[in-house]
């Protein structure tokens, strides 16, 4: 008995963050990743492929999303700049295996951790990921060099990781930055 449309929608929405993440690695463009995920959802609902189990659907969604994302990159850019397929497949396997990271809880934890950041640090992340500015733009706005922004973003991501883990473990949101 193939999955019904409601089950397909429910399964894809529960895997949305993971599929979006694997798309973002390739396209590095949030609207494009959203568009592709939407296309994959519509394809799944169209019924051209039948899914007997949820795992089958998720696997199909990852592969279909990856192919569409690679086509998007090829169409948009003059040279292939995505990671190798072997790397992408390895990342997808690890994402599929690592089911502990729940979507909604994680977003809530991140929200708390962002609120706990100093304003200047939050501004860097907002420019980069909320407004999708390039690192060169963020560097100009921040009055520093681009390498300094790369380093600052790396440190911020590490600090947020620890903060999110603490928050998911029930502790308060506290961001501790590494020394430069």
């Amino acid at each position, binding site marked *: 008995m193939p999955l019904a449309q409601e089950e397909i929608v429910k399964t894809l929405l529960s895997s949305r963050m993971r599929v979006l993440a694997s798309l973002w690695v390739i396209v590095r463009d949030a609207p494009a990743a959203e568009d592709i995920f939407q296309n994959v959802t519509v394809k799944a609902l169209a019924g051209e492929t039948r899914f007997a189990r949820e795992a089958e659907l998720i696997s199909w969604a990852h592969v279909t999303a990856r192919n569409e994302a690679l086509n998007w990159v090829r169409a948009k850019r003059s040279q292939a700049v995505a990671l190798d397929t072997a790397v992408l497949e*390895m990342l997808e396997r690890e994402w599929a295996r690592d089911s502990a990271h729940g979507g909604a809880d994680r977003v809530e934890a991140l929200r708390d951790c962002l609120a706990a950041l100093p304003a200047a640090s939050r501004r860097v992340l907002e420019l980069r990921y909320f*407004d999708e500015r390039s690192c060169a733009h963020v560097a100009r706005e921040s009055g520093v060099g681009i390498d300094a922004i790369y380093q600052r973003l790396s440190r911020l991501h590490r600090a947020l990781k620890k903060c999110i883990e603490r928050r998911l473990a029930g502790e308060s949101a506290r961001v501790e930055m590494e020394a430069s």
Partner: protein
Amino acid sequence: MNTSDRDRDGLLMRYFDGTISPQERTALNTLLLEDADARALLREIVEQAVAMGDLARERAHASPRVLSERMRSPVRWRMSLAWAAIAAVVLMAGAAALWFLQGPVSEVVTLEQISGAVTLSTDSGPAQNGLQSGATMRAGTLSVEGSTSSAHLRFIDGTSLTLSGESELALTGETQKRMTLRRGSLNADVRTQKPGQPMRILTSTAEIEVVGTRFQLSTNSGSTTLSVESGHVRMRRLADGSVVDVRQGEMSLATLETTNSLESSRMLLAPTTFRQTFEQAPTVLWRGTWLPADNQGPGRLQQVPDVSDKKSDGVPRVNYAVCVQDHSGSMVSVGPESVLRVRFRAARGNDVLILFSLRNPKGGFAGNFQTIIKPDSSDWRTFDIKLSELKAGFPEHPAIAVDSRVTLIYLACFSPKSNLEVSEVAIEPSPSGSQPLGSAKPERKVGDAQ
């Protein structure tokens, strides 16, 4: 953070920023293949980036007045509307489920004519194969498999629908006609419906509302095409809720793209000549395995399995076909004098079916026409036939009218070992040259057409 960590972070950040060099990309690929910690860091950064994207959208919806310039860009709006489309699809799935969960049904539908592989699935029992013409149904899903299969349905009020090709239609069985065309194509002749109870058909990208008219509807996962033969039909694009009234002789296309307004236009003019060779791989409208030119012959399409019918136990009968299907009506316009030319080969002793499916220029179904060739050798051969010599498949469409539009050209054998290959399909408006049809050409060693 040591120098090695800094190098790794720099590579990742430059990759995400789109400023990585080819050499650095190679180094990053190697690093990620070998270093699980590097992959874990990449995944962490990406998950944070995606989550921040969600928070940005949430903020944009909550505080439209403080949107940054970038958030007001067309790209952003397109994304919002894309999610509206997802929501619409989710709603469609939910609505379809609700329809089927509703109480007793009242409308009986007669399956007036069944051709090929047609399956009925209902909530009350196993899927029914081997349906016979005259069977009735109330609610359920009709699946038509195979390019040449079709199902003709008639409602109590005289409204009729013809599903053709690879199509799937779910009916609710309510008094108000509501259905979901999940894929494929249907022709409809809708009697005037009760006031306030128009017929509604949902697809993945559109909903259409019909009071009484004749039209043709085709859909796949990303688009819906509506062609109206008489009267008018209202179409709503699910992605943004925009509406267009499509009138007689007009068509409209609803996709998930919302940057262009939803409009109707005059139906496409079709050429009267058509020629397809396979030196290059053909468009996705064609079915068959493409083979480039080699010492066995020119570029060509090789047969692929295609369900032609299903036995009552659900076991499919399979043809081995090369075909093209295009419901837009713009592929080619033909009349009884038009001539078909096919260059093909098949293993000796295998019959070759040639079948055309037609619609009239306003969108209505105009019949199937076919012949069977009996090749007497396995050599490449060219076969010409005037379309008026083809045999009608439906008694209500006994002859080919002028300006009929081809929606399917289908060549098939009946054995997996028939090795059917096609290198050219062409249509001319009338016989050309001084040679009469059927005259000998070096390649034309074809037996009688039935």
